[in-house]
């Protein structure tokens, strides 16, 4: 009678009884662990991510001027100043651009072509550049007249590191003649 009831109700030896208890305990423990993971609190991580995102967006906007143009490698500098909004004149190894639009081409040596210098080879004024900059100055002044941003004559010079001083000087002189007197030389900061 006793044997029959033991067979029907559960384990017949202490070893089997212990094994069953152990298995059930493991199963119960596993279920508890799964429940813990399901309620992982991700709010602090989200806070951290949001702060990181704001920081990245801020630093991204500080250096977001696109100067990727063919044949243009900026010189390295130790300056600590960050870039500023200004009309951009680019001097690559073979051309001059204003707002990424071609103004004139340079000689294979990287010098200005004689036909662009109406005052002769020793003259400073670069005529095609002067015309465009003069139009830009007039445009900015019109904007100012209509209550827009004040025209202060800032111009960004983005030049290749191999550009000759002669070319740079003539471009700066022409910009100055067209009422752009505050030159901002764009350079590459050292990494890090």
């Amino acid at each position, binding site marked *: 009678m006793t044997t029959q009831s033991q067979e029907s109700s559960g384990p017949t030896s202490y070893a089997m009884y212990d094994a069953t208890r152990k298995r059930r305990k493991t199963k119960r423990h596993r279920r508890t662990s799964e429940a813990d993971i399901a309620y992982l609190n*991700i*709010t602090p*991580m*989200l806070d951290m*991510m*949001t702060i*990181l*995102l704001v920081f*990245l*967006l801020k*630093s*991204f906007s500080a*250096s*977001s*001027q696109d*100067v990727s143009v063919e044949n243009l490698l*900026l*010189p*390295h*500098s*130790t*300056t*600590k*100043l*960050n*870039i*500023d909004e200004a009309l951009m004149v680019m001097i690559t190894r073979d051309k001059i651009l204003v707002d990424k639009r071609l103004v004139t081409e340079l000689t294979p040596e990287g010098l200005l072509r004689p036909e662009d210098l109406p005052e002769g080879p020793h003259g400073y004024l670069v005529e095609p550049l002067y015309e465009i900059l003069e139009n830009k100055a007039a445009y900015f002044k019109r904007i100012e007249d209509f209550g827009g941003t004040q025209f202060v004559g800032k111009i960004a010079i983005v*030049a*290749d*590191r*191999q*550009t*000759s*001083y*002669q070319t*740079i*000087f003539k471009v*700066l002189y022409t910009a*100055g003649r067209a009422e752009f*007197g*505050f*030159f*901002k*030389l*764009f*350079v*590459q*900061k050292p*990494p890090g």
Partner: protein
Amino acid sequence: MTTGSESPSSGQKQSGYYTGRETQNYTYTDFTYVRRKRSGHVEEEEVGELNIVPYLDIIVNLIMFLLVVQATLVSLGLIDVTAPSYASLGPSDAQQNPEQQKKQLRLTVGIAREGFYIAASGGVLPGETEEGSGEITEEGVEKRPPTIPLLPDGNYNFAALKARLREIKDWIANEHTELETTGLYVAAEATTPYEVVVKTLDASRDDTRGDLFPAVAFTEIR
């Protein structure tokens, strides 16, 4: 305490809601307690927590994108250069106030193939004399050796330029306070690469002790 489903006094079935009437055995507190206990889990499910996982996905993707873009983006800097002011250098100022004109020290750094030339008009720099070396070229121009010659490897000696400018700055500040420098003029030979000009501007801007000559204007050697 019995549940609110059945009223012990009347024996009628109650709806489970508080009707405003107080029975003999049930108080308002009992009703609210029972109602809260019954519907507690239902309320939690309805209010729940805002699912922030999709938002988190977007944030993570944005951060990844910005990090990658920043790594590939060139970090840009700026050097301020102002156009020379002709008004302050013109003869009218000298006529109006000759004393003031005397005090102006125009400091110029010339970049030549042989090295750097440092010259000043309106004063004699320390370690230099008013007389030159005496060697006159065919064009009738006095020829001087560069103030800072090139390094043996053919590169420009920017460290020596920086040291010399610091010496001049200290000399003005300590011994010649009557002199005033409006800034530094940089001149270079026509073929000088822009990179050398920028490095010269870097060397003349500041050193470990502070500012040197941060205001710079370009000029040309004729």
